[in-house]
């Protein structure tokens, strides 16, 4: 019998259910059991099952989750908008991420940090994974597909690290996997992160229609950065280098990854991400990740240099 593949949303929900009902874990956060159940990514479980509603005190809430991690409950800590990490990050990065190194006490926690964008203003929009990137003791993954999410959870459960899992609501409907797009002799190479992966695939298709071969290597494990041999191979063959795409400001992960890739392949790299300005609520004032059209334009510009 043919079965419908699960979407990312359903996989996240089942992962949380497994964590609470099988793995003796906790899920903690604000307004988890309210309408919507965080975009339909939580099972309908309550405090008796390990679904812990926290007060609306972001800094302390993250500290409660760190305490739960220290107690070995491996909390899944839900942050509904990545921008809220400006409040949530302090105790996580200064205690949980350092605890194993300073005191030999692992503090494993799974931070579900959720991005979205479009008309939600200067804080709530976009990914903000670069906040954590500069600090030691944290692993950063950005799974956009069901398989990637399962891998993320497995890696978390097999180790004892703090995981920052950069999710994006725009990917919750995805049921397919995304393979890298590889050409024998690419003109250019894209390394998209988070939701920009969808735009990168579309841009590659648009450019191929014009006879321009643009390889796409999806970046899912951000820190530690998984520098695959296929990345270097594509960059070495490409005539004009590559570009790292991100849903965050470029002065963070995007430039660091671009530096690593450029240094390894000995080629020119560029970056595309949020513009260096605050996002407003209106369409004209918003600050969105690069669209396929912007990527196409950027690639053509690089190729004609």
């Amino acid at each position: 019998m043919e079965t419908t593949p699960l979407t990312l949303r359903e996989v996240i929900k089942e992962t949380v259910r497994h964590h609470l009902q099988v793995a003796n874990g906790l899920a903690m956060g604000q307004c988890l059991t309210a309408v919507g159940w965080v975009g339909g990514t939580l099972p309908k479980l309550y405090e008796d099952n390990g679904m812990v509603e926290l007060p609306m005190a972001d800094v302390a809430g993250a500290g409660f989750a760190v305490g739960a991690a220290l107690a070995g409950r491996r909390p899944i800590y839900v942050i509904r908008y990545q921008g809220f990490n400006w409040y949530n990050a302090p105790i996580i990065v200064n205690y949980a991420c350092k605890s194993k190194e300073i005191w030999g006490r692992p503090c494993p926690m799974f931070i579900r940090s959720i991005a979205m964008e479009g008309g939600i203003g200067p804080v709530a929009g976009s990914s903000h994974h670069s906040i954590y990137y500069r600090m030691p003791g944290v692993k950063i993954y950005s799974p956009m597909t069901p398989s990637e999410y399962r891998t993320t959870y497995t890696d978390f459960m097999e180790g004892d690290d703090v995981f920052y899992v950069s999710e994006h609501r725009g990917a919750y409907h995805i049921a397919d996997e995304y393979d890298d797009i590889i050409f024998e002799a690419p003109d250019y190479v894209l390394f998209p992160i988070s939701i920009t992966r969808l735009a990168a695939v579309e841009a590659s298709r648009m450019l191929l229609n014009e006879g321009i071969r643009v390889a796409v290597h999806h970046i899912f494990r951000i820190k530690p950065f998984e520098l695959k041999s296929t990345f270097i191979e594509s960059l070495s063959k490409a005539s004009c280098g590559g570009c790292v795409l991100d849903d965050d400001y470029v002065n963070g992960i995007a430039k660091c990854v671009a530096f690593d890739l450029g240094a390894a392949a000995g080629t020119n790299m560029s970056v595309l991400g949020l513009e260096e300005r605050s996002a407003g609520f209106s369409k004209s004032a918003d600050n969105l990740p690069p669209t396929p059209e912007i990527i196409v334009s950027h690639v053509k510009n690089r190729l004609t240099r």
Partner: protein
Amino acid sequence: MNLSELLARDIYQRADLCRQFEVEVFKQVESKNIQLPVYLSAGQEYIAATLSVALEHLGIVNRQVFIQHRGHSTYLCFGGDIDGLILELLGRVGCTNGMGGSASIHSKEANIFGHDGLMGSHGPIAVGMAYSNKLPTLCFTGDAAAEEDYFLAAIGWASTKNLPMLFVVEDNNLSILTEKKVRRNWEMHEIARGFRMNAYDIEDCPEAIFESLDEHLFETPLLLNIRTNRLFWHAGAGIDSHDTPDRHLIFGERFTEDFRIETREKNSDILRSAWKRHL
């Protein structure tokens, strides 16, 4: 809970060890054998000495203790290893493998959790841990760190969830040298009561501390704001208040001179041997 004479002697002996330890650390700082910044707890040792003796007396052995900087006395009273602390202060591989210095010491064996340096962060962490494993949890903090907004939120959630918490605010009235009245117009025990938690504002005399530990200890959260007097600033540059009598001298008056001398000499021997092993 009343303080018996036997327990009073335990407290005195424990506090005396802490006092002598801190005075020796100060000497080692002056002689430059210790070159890390140290945060001395001399003057405040009766808080940790009394609470550690009380918990042992009550048979509460599965407790977890969260401390912050100025925590040498708490570390020693709750079972931290002296040699490990000396090595750590000397900048070697000690109780925290050289990572802790004076401010971030810990002990796995004694279930003492170190502090990361972000003032007050251990409040929410302690509460999160108490929520998760339901074990008796002590959280020591200063009157300044307790002002951190997330520390106040931690008190609130401990009350909401009725957690087995004992918050201990070591209140010397100062943040560095800024007095409480400059910083705020409220007291910690009032805030805790506002969160519907039992709370008391007391002196650091063992009798008062004992009396504040009611029969519901760790069945419901409790906050003790304990007024105390720190003898040394960060590394012994001064004294908090010359007007405040020394608790160690006052409490010692209830014992015979022979007992005081015997205690001092016994602790002195322990510490002399320990320092000698590492200097």
